[in-house]
C-alpha cells in the first residue's frame, strides 16, 4: 500500500524543492500566508488538536494539547524545534531538512504563530553542519520574501527564527537539556516540574517539538483536519517517516500511514525489500536504541503508538533496526549500552554508574569471553537499580537493550558463561585445584 499523497516527505521528487520559488510553486508557504492574514492563532491550535497530531520525537504526546499548556498572557514565549537527532537508527529529520528545508521552516513559522511567540530556535545537532547551512539559507530566503521578520505581510506579526548548532551530545535531545544547551550551559537535564510550557528557556514558557512533528503542521492547516485524519489510525492519525536500517535489502526512510504492519515495512519490495540474503530475522528494534526489542513473531504488530506498546515495546522515533541471526544478543546489548555510557551526562548516579558497570560486565562477557558464573544475576541487579531511578529518560533507555537481551536470549549469555567456565577448568587442570568439588 503506497501513499498517494505524502505528508512529511512531500514533493521530494519535485526537482529543486529546496529552493524557495520551487517550494512556492507546489503550494508551499500558502498555508502560512493564509493563516497569518485570516486565521486566529487559536483556530490553528484547535485544528492541530482535532487532527490529533502526536509528537514524533518519541513520546507521542498530542501536540495540540501540549500547545494549550502554555499559561495565558505570559510573554515572551519560545518555540524550540528539536533537531538533535542522535538516537542510533534515526535519520529522518536530517533528510527532511536536507531535501525540503522550507517545509520545516513553514511548520515552525505556523506553529510559532499558533502559540503566539515571536522567537523560534531550531536546535541542530552539531554534526549536521551542512544541513544547518541549508536551513540558514532557506530561512534567509523566507526573510527576503517578507515571510519572517518584522510586520509579516503587513499583519503586524513579528517572528524571528534562529538556527543553533549543538556540539555533539545525545543528551541535548532531552527537552530540558536542550534548553540548558541553548542557554550556553552544559547540557544536563533539569528537574520537571516546572514543565517547559510553564518555565522553559530563560525561565519563560517554551514549547519544544520535533522536526517531523512540525513538518506535519503546514499540511494540516492547508488541507484540513478531515483529510489528515483519513491517514493512519483513530488514535494515531497521519503518517510516520520510518527510518529502516540493519540487515534489510533496502534500508532508508519510508513514509507510511500509522497502523501498517511491521511485516510490510520490512518485506514489501516497495520498502525494506526483505532480509539481505533471505536470512531469518532475529531482533527487531522498533523505535531506536531506547526501545525494548521485538522478534520475528511480532511481524504482524501494527506500527502505531498503541500497537507497538501492546507488543511490549515503543514506537519511539520510528527508527526500525532489523538484525538477522548472525548477530549475538550480548554483543548488540554491549554496543548499545556502550553508546548510553558514552552519552550519559553524569548528572545522576544511577545512570552514570549504572551504564558504566553494565558496559564493564558486558565488555568482559561479550568481547573478551571471560564470564563469571553469577554474571546474569549481576546484570539483572544493575539494570533493576537503574530502572525508575534515573533523572531523565537516558538512563531508563539504557536499561532496555540489556533487559531485552536477557529476557529474549538468556541462552546466549548462559552459553558464554558455560564456555568460559570450561576454559577456566581446563586452564587449571595442570595445577593443584584450589576448590575441590
Amino acid at each position: 500500500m503506497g501513499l498517494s499523497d505524502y505528508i512529511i516527505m512531500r514533493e521530494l521528487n519535485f526537482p529543486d524543492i529546496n529552493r524557495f520559488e520551487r517550494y512556492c510553486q507546489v503550494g508551499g508557504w500558502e498555508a502560512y500566508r493564509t493563516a497569518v492574514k485570516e486565521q486566529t492563532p487559536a483556530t490553528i491550535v484547535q485544528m492541530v488538536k482535532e487532527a490529533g497530531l502526536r509528537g514524533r520525537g518519541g513520546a507521542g504526546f498530542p501536540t495540540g494539547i501540549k500547545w494549550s499548556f502554555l499559561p495565558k498572557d505570559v510573554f515572551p514565549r519560545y518555540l524550540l524545534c528539536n533537531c538533535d537527532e542522535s538516537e542510533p537508527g534515526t535519520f529522518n529529520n536530517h533528510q527532511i531538512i536536507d531535501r525540503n528545508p522550507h517545509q520545516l521552516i513553514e511548520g515552525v513559522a505556523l506553529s510559532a504563530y499558533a502559540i503566539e511567540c515571536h522567537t523560534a530556535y531550531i536546535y541542530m545537532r552539531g554534526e549536521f553542519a551542512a544541513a544547518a547551512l541549508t536551513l540558514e539559507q532557506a530561512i534567509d530566503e523566507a526573510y527576503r520574501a517578507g515571510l519572517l521578520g518584522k510586520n509579516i505581510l503587513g499583519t503586524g506579526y513579528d517572528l524571528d527564527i534562529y538556527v543553533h548548532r549543538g556540539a555533539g551530545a545525545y543528551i541535548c535531545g532531552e527537552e530540558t537539556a536542550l534548553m540548558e544547551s541553548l542557554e550556553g550551559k552544559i547540557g544536563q537535564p533539569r528537574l520537571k516540574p516546572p514543565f517547559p510550557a510553564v518555565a522553559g528557556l530563560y525561565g519563560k514558557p517554551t514549547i519544544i517539538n520535533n522536526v517531523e512533528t512540525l513538518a506535519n503542521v503546514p499540511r494540516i492547516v492547508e488541507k484540513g483536519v478531515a483529510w489528515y485524519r483519513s491517514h493512519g489510525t483513530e488514535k494515531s492519525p497521519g503518517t510516520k517517516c520510518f527510518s529502516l536500517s540493519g540487515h534489510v535489502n533496502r534500508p532508508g526512510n519510508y513514509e507510511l500511514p500509522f497502523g501498517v504492519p511491521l511485516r510490510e515495512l520490512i518485506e514489501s519490495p516497495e520498502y525494506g525489500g526483505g532480509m539481505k540474503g533471505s536470512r531469518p530475522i532475529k531482533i527487531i528494534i522498533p523505535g531506536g536504541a531506547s526501545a525494548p526489542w521485538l522478534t520475528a513473531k511480532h511481524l504482524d504488530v501494527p506500527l502505531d503508538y498503541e500497537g507497538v506498546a501492546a507488543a511490549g515495546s515503543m514506537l519511539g522515533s520510528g527508527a526500525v533496526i532489523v538484525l538477522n541471526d548472525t548477530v549475538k544478543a550480548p554483543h548488540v546489548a554491549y554496543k548499545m549500552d556502550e553508546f548510553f555510557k558514552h552519552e550519559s551526562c553524569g548528572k545522576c548516579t544511577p545512570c552514570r554508574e549504572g551504564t558504566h558497570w553494565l558496559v564493564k560486565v558486558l565488555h568482559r562477557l561479550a568481547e573478551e569471553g571471560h564470564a563469571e558464573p553469577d554474571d546474569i544475576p549481576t546484570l539483572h541487579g544493575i539494570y533493576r537499580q537503574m530502572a525508575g531511578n534515573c533523572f531523565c529518560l537516558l538512563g531508563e533507555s539504557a536499561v532496555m537493550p540489556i533487559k531485552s537481551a536477557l529476557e529474549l536470549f538468556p541462552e546466549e549469555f548462559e552459553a558464554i558463561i558455560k564456555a568460559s567456565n570450561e576454559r577456566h577448568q581446563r586452564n587449571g587442570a595442570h595445577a593443584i585445584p584450589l576448590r575441590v568439588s
Partner: protein
Amino acid sequence: MKRHQYRADALIEVLHKAQELYGHLTEDRLLAIAHSLHLPPSRVYGVATFYHFFSLTPQGEHSCTVCLGTACYVKGAMELLATLETESGLRAGSTSADGKLSLLTARCLGACGIAPAVIVDGNVAGHADPEVMRARVRALLDED
C-alpha cells in the same frame, strides 16, 4: 564574539567559531573566552569538555571518523575500524605523530541507512568497504 554581543549564552557558538579558526581549543583560549563573556573559567572549561565536538588537543590535518552505531556495528564497522587501525598504526581516537591524520570514532552519525558510514574530512562515505577505505587512509597518510 562581537557578533554575539558578548552574551554569555552564546558560549557554544563562540567555542564553535574558535575551534573553526584555530583547529582546537587551548586553555589560554578558553580563559580569553571566559574573560570576554564574563563567565567563570570553570563554566567555559566545563562546556568545552562536556560536548564531544570540542577538542582540547590538536587534530590531524585530515580526519577519518568511523561510526560505531548499532546499524553500522551489525554491518561490520568493527572490522572496518580494525583494518584502518592496522593500516595507519593508530589507535582509534589518536592522531599520527606527523599530524597528518586523526582516526576517530563516533557513537552514531545518523546515517544508519548507508551503514557502515565513515566521514573522511567532513564528507560522508556510505557502505564503506574496508579495502577501499584502507586505500583512502593510505593516500591521506602518504600525502605531502
